[in-house]
């Protein structure tokens, strides 16, 4: 059977069904919602727009997200994460219908604020022909106003053309790390001082920050801005 397949086996793969040639274009804004001191009953709005000339249905769902070591977004879409997200946030509808060149607002209500931080995601998925795309709207919610991010540089590695820092957030809120890197030349003189800002680091997480280095750099020193940055 396998031998036969070797010669006559022809497999044609068609990706991205259903069939169609539509070039739908959909916009979503905002795509990051950050709020502190959030309270039960608080509502967040996300605008969806259809720029195409055909009506389109939008499917809405909730999940959680985390952060990878490189700082990337990791979606948590397992049933437990989806259940947890739905326990804190409620969608007023799970589908939207947008007319051509139409728009509508998705309302997300915080129904339970028994958390320090909630990192949830709203998926907005147009039901359309062609390749399937979806938007992820990130919610970074904190119940406290006073709790701060607590950033430290846990390690750094100098390579030939880059400096890689690992920034850890020991605080109870997401934030940014800010610091300064001093670049020393062959005569051990500071040739350049560079201000560095990491991307967002979620509470209790760490992420890598890469700083390109000129070829003349022999050694570096890293200084943290102890005040920390909130976002």
């Amino acid at each position, binding site marked *: 059977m396998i031998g036969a*397949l070797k010669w006559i086996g022809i497999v044609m793969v068609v990706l991205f069904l259903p069939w169609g040639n539509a070039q739908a*274009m959909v916009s979503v804004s905002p795509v*990051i919602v950050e709020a502190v001191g959030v309270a039960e009953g608080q509502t967040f709005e996300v605008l969806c727009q259809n720029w195409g000339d055909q009506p389109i249905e939008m499917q809405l769902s909730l999940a959680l997200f985390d952060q990878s070591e490189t700082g990337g*977004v990791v979606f948590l879409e397992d049933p437990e994460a989806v259940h947890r997200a739905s326990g804190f946030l409620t969608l007023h509808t799970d589908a939207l219908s947008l007319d051509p060149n139409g728009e509508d607002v998705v309302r997300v209500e915080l129904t339970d604020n028994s958390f320090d931080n909630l990192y949830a995601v709203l998926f907005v998925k147009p039901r359309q022909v*062609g*390749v399937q*795309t*979806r*938007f992820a709207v990130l919610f970074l919610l904190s119940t406290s106003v006073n709790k701060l991010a607590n950033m430290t540089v846990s390690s750094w590695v100098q390579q030939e053309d880059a400096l890689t820092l690992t920034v850890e957030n020991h605080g109870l809120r997401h934030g940014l790390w800010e610091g300064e890197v001093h670049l020393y030349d062959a005569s051990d003189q500071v040739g350049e001082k560079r201000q560095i800002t990491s991307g967002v680091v979620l509470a209790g997480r760490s992420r890598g920050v890469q700083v390109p280095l000129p070829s003349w750099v022999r050694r570096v020193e890293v200084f943290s801005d102890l005040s920390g940055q909130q976002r």
Partner: protein
Amino acid sequence: MVRNHFFVGVLCVTVLLALTTIAQASGTVTFQIEVLPGLSVSSPDLLVFDPVAPGQSDHQDLNITVWSNVTWELSVQAVGYDVEGGLQGTIDVATPGGWVELTNESSVIRENQSPTGPTGVTLLTPFRFIGSYEDVPGTYSFQVEFTVVAAL
């Protein structure tokens, strides 16, 4: 004489006050506008691979256009692939780090992409299918889902 100077002075002050009032009436207005982070995506057409025999491969490129005013990421996952009775051959997607097998779990194929500006950015994403002897000849289909998200 003194009285005339007084009236001239009062007249000057009155004119100055009037000019000030006119200037305020036609003065500048401060506009305050908040620009929110937003994303747009243009969905491409479907992608059809050429017929392949077991062990052979075929490459196809897919274009997806993204508009964003913030740093963003793009990930991809297969939906309904590798299910019972489904396709067993390997589908790979190209990433900056090389080919990555497309699975039902999301894989990041573009990280830390800069804001695109009004023209957007069209990404050419190569896909590769390698036929398998496990697949009975025929036509198979499944969906691929792209997720666009603002970078943290």
